[in-house]
């Protein structure tokens, strides 16, 4: 290469002398577009790094997915159990069985007395014949009903309570009515179910917290190993003027990618569990003559899971990359 040519090319590399002092400093403050370009490049680098170690990355994603799947599955279970409770809530009626020995006149008196009890909004009467007809319609009970020589069923009053009434208190008042043999209501059972659901919800929160931290630590460890493996590159980039933020950025995207894909794996696992138990649950409900079907995981809960995974990954990577860079610098 001739000296003249070399000098010409060197001059081509340099800006005019009057902007010499400002050169490079202008580049040190990237515009919004350049900043975005840097983020795109960091994301590309993170994806490339992920695929460069496919097997390891996949194992990490699955482990993170398993950790996040457990609280998701439990949350899904609790939500569906809540629906069972909700369905029971709608069935607030009390069933009042009259003494089978009552004659028609006593039945009429007892029914009137029940209608007069405070807190009763409506009463629906069911005769022993209506009861027998309903019994015959239940699967397996037809033959048993035929075998009876007389109808043993009592008169029944289906009591709809007023909105503000506490069911157990109304049941006590109804039991006191002359001619009433038995008052059946679901309040106690439902309260128990509510308590169990509340307990399960707390368990879900605690598990979600613990397993979320676990997933974050998994991601942090994966990123820490990544940072250690790329020490030389980090050192060079830093010497060439890469700021801490610039050096950390691909690792943050890497962590977010792990978190996001881990959450996606957890959602896939949740769907697998849902599809596996959906039919058995429906069959079980049918044996109780109930039309209950598991609700599918909602789009909202899936979106929240993806968001949580992404944030956990980002935080895990931020902590790991920062600590590792500080540790390397101290060395």
């Amino acid at each position, binding site marked *: 290469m001739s000296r003249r040519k070399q000098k010409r*090319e060197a001059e081509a590399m*340099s*800006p005019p002398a009057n902007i010499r002092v400002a050169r490079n400093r202008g580049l040190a403050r990237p515009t919004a577009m350049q900043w975005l370009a840097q983020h795109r490049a960091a994301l590309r680098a993170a994806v490339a790094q992920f695929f460069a170690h496919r097997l390891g990355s996949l194992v990490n994603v699955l482990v993170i997915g398993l950790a996040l799947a457990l609280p998701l599955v439990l949350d899904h279970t609790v939500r569906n159990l809540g629906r069972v409770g909700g369905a029971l809530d709608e069935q607030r009626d009390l069933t009042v069985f009259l003494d089978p020995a009552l004659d028609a006149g006593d039945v009429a008196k007892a029914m009137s007395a029940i209608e007069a009890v405070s807190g009763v909004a409506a009463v629906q009467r069911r005769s022993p014949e209506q009861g027998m007809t309903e019994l015959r319609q239940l699967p397996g009970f037809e033959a048993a009903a035929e075998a009876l020589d007389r109808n043993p069923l009592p008169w029944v009053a289906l009591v709809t309570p007023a909105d503000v009434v506490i069911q157990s208190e109304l049941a006590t008042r109804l039991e006191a009515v002359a001619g009433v043999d038995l008052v059946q209501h679901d309040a106690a059972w439902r309260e128990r179910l509510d308590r169990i659901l509340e307990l399960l919800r707390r368990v879900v929160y605690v598990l979600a917290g613990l397993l979320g931290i676990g997933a974050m630590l998994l991601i942090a460890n994966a990123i820490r190993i990544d940072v250690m493996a790329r020490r030389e590159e980090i050192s060079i980039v*830093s010497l060439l003027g890469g700021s*801490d933020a610039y050096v950390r950025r691909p690792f943050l995207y890497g962590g977010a990618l792990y978190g996001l894909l881990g959450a996606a794996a957890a959602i896939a696992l949740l769907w697998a569990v849902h599809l596996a138990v959906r039919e058995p649950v429906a069959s079980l409900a049918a044996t109780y003559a109930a039309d209950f079907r598991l609700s599918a995981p909602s789009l909202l809960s899936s979106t929240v899971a993806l968001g949580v995974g992404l944030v956990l990954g980002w935080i895990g990577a931020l902590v790991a990359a920062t600590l590792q860079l500080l540790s390397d610098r101290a060395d």
Partner: protein
Amino acid sequence: MIRFDNVGKRYANGGDALSELSFEIGTGEMVFVTGHSGAGKSTLIKLLALIERPTRGQIVVDDEHLATTRGARIAAYRQRLGLVFQDYRLLADRSIADNVALPLKITGCDDTELQKRVRAALDLVGLGGRERVRPSMLSGGEQQRVGIARAIVARPALIVADEPTGNLDPQLASEIMQLFVALAHTGSTILVASHDLHLIQRMKKRVLVLDKGRLIDDFRPGKGA
């Protein structure tokens, strides 16, 4: 541009790498630093690159007081430097174009400008047309040229080179030095640490001579010691 004011550097083992070092280098000047092995050349380079900090004295580069430069300002300062390392410091898993492009990517240069500058820098060091080659496919001298291309690609105000011609044949070493001279003429300040006295003599530039960490000579051509 560069001012060393009574600078000293003592390492943790108690040895003085540099003592009472004072000199100034003006903008657009090209200066050699020479001396025997262990004279303090590399330490001086490390101080300028903010890899090490002085234990005494002040270093000022273009109004930047290096003793107090911290955090994000270190990165901003280094973006104004072009560093050539004795051991090249290239990324083995990237092409030489990607290696040369690193300083531009760090500063957020747009793709079109980046491609243009990388091609120009590689042409300048005689590696044009080999952009996609990995460093491991190159000889030591060629890798050193990649390092030089990376140092000049962002048009730095200051180029600091540690033995940049150590692995080059005399002809190529001379060409690289002429390139530095040309860059100095365009306003870049160049500081080259070298123990190649023949090359230094041929260049007829200012020479700082170090011995056991002390400046024993500040030779300016035409002015004598």
